[in-house]
């Protein structure tokens, strides 16, 4: 699946998007945040306050307990500040 990052999540990770291949034990958004955080210091920094991170699966907002099975694109970003 494709992971995409925005705003300071993108800046901290240092990438706009990437293909990721989490193991089957990674079932929810929260699991995925934990798995990504272990990939390196940049990821750990981006996700250090996991509760503030928002996620979207295939362009729809989801909560951290949402299942990631079948997702093509998972996005991580800070709370929105548009408008």
């Amino acid at each position, binding site marked *: 699946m494709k992971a*995409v990052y925005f*705003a300071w999540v993108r800046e901290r990770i240092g990438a706009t998007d990437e293909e990721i291949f989490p193991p089957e034990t990674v079932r929810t958004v929260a699991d995925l945040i934990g798995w990504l955080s272990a990939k390196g210091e940049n990821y750990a920094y981006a996700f250090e306050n996991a509760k503030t991170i928002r996620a979207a699966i295939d*362009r729809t907002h989801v909560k951290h307990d949402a299942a990631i099975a079948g997702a093509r694109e998972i996005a991580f970003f800070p*709370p*929105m500040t*548009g408008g």
Partner: protein
Amino acid sequence: MGVDRRAHGFPSDARGGKPGTCNVRVQSEPFDVAVESAHLTAGRTDIGAIVTFTGLCRDEGGTLATLELEHYPGMAEEEISRVAQEALDRWPLMGLTAIHRYGKIAPGEPIVLVVTISAHRAAAFAAAEFLMDFLKTRAPFWKKERRVDGSSGDWVAARDDDDAAAERWSEG
């Protein structure tokens, strides 16, 4: 994140009236409130109320050089369209327009526009406020400030009172 997503027009049922229009756009160029209002109201004589909301880039006491608005292409349009559809379902609107810009925006320039039309003012006002409250908290846009002193400034933090403003629509 380059390409503009253009007018997502789709018809809506104005609860028994003529079908209304719903225009959602995400674009880098400025917009013209008068043109958008005229487009929405063209040829109709059954409208009683037009509300427009324009959100502008503030200079923050002269410290802000530009705002850089990052967005999630594709999701931005879809999320605004979902919020727009909710507004059309909740109030007897004859139409609405919602436009959100991205990219570099200077102080005094417009960022966001909402126009609502209805037979009566209560629906037009409520729907416009609802749209803005949810654009603020659900549309995937992020503001970064560039300061006049050359420093890159910070990502604008989300405001608790924006969440509270969105929350009030879930009562009742």
